[in-house]
């Protein structure tokens, strides 16, 4: 046990409300056991959205490239709360993909190649806040960083910007995804990404 320093500790900072002491990760958190980096050819790539009632919309890579593409300049806030310098992406806005659809469900489950899932409220995907991104700083997104396409939601924790995205399923409730279910917390992001992910 460390030596106690008399009288120390009265001026400590408030700890973050979402980091209760001692309740972080368990030893057996499956950080790297969730599988290798998926390797998807754009010829085989497909993206779908499954709406309430089961209606599905699908896009092939060529379909995606034919949609309006935006340039997104943003700071990425990674899970460990360190900010990143400005980055430039290109992608298709989720608003474009959801155009003309009526959904009464307020939540989504994002599915990735490789089986990962993460949950995101619908409102965090709409109104210019999210994209399917396939280019980073002028280069096609490489598989290590989530390519050929990943979800990009700059205003949320970066681990919500799911790599290797393959689809969105509408959910009525805010059901937890794979990482959320596995007790994922601040320090356990397998996509632990610092300034340059």
């Amino acid at each position, binding site marked *: 046990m460390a*030596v106690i320093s008399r*009288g120390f500790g009265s001026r400590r900072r408030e700890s973050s409300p979402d980091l209760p002491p001692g309740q972080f990760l368990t030893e057996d958190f499956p950080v790297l056991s969730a599988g290798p980096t998926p390797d998807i050819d754009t010829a085989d790539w497909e993206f779908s959205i499954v709406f309430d009632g089961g209606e599905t919309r699908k896009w092939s890579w060529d379909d995606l490239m034919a949609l309006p593409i935006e340039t997104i300049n943003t700071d990425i806030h990674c899970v460990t709360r360190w900010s990143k310098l400005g980055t430039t992406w290109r992608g298709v806005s989720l608003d474009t993909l959801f155009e003309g659809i009526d959904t009464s469900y307020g939540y989504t489950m994002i599915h990735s190649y490789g089986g990962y899932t993460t949950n995101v409220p619908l409102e965090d995907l709409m109104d210019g806040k999210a994209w399917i991104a396939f280019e980073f700083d002028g280069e096609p997104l490489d598989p290590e960083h989530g390519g050929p396409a990943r979800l990009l939601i700059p205003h949320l924790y970066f681990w919500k910007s799911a790599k290797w995205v393959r689809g969105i399923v509408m959910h009525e409730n805010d059901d937890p995804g794979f990482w959320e279910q596995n007790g994922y917390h601040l320090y356990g992001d397998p996509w632990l990404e610092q300034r340059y992910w």
Partner: protein
Amino acid sequence: MTAAPSVTADWMVGTVTSTAYATPGGRVLALEVPHWPGNLAGQHLDLRLTAEDGYQAVRSYSIASVGFGSTVELAVDQIPDGEVSPYLTMDVMAGDQLEVRGPLGGWFVWKPTDPGPVQLIGGGSGVVPLVAMMREHVASGSDVPFKLLYSVRTNDDAFFYDEIRSLASPTIDVTFAFTRKTPYGFEGTAGRLTKESVERDTIPASENPTVFVCGPTGFVEAVANWLVALGHDPARVKTERFGGK
């Protein structure tokens, strides 16, 4: 000292033996650390405090003392809203125990066998490792030309002010730059360092000095950029940033 002490990655207990007010917000502390392996000029230590409920905080401090011996001297400046510096500058008293780890840092170090000339540039409490270097210079009888440029708000805010002035010698040149108010009798006006004042008050790049710059991050980065712009080889400019502006 002739050889670098081995690194100790483990914590050692230190007992505060004396505290002295040095500046309006700062104190000089002497610690007795029985197993201290000694340190080179410019090295620092990590200091760890543990509260009764187990909460811990660790901070790094440059060491003002140099050489062998179990007494370690630190100078601590108070940071507003800090967690540790208010404890060390206001609460801690002789007899209190804390833990230290070190000595640390093999790069921001001056040894008497290193070639000169040497330019030291310090901002605020960044002068502490530079004072250690000046003390080593004197203790070793070195004749390497040393020049110190110390930027500080007022002379009251200067750590080791009297000692620094007394260390001035044919081989140690001391220049103070007061940013807020100059002391009575001082020739020169108050103001922050500029590229021009740095050029005026430091060893020119043409003499190829080793330059040590220490202080808050913003200060160090500004000064280092000026030095490079003035022609100093970046490889000969060694910096140590504390954080902050």
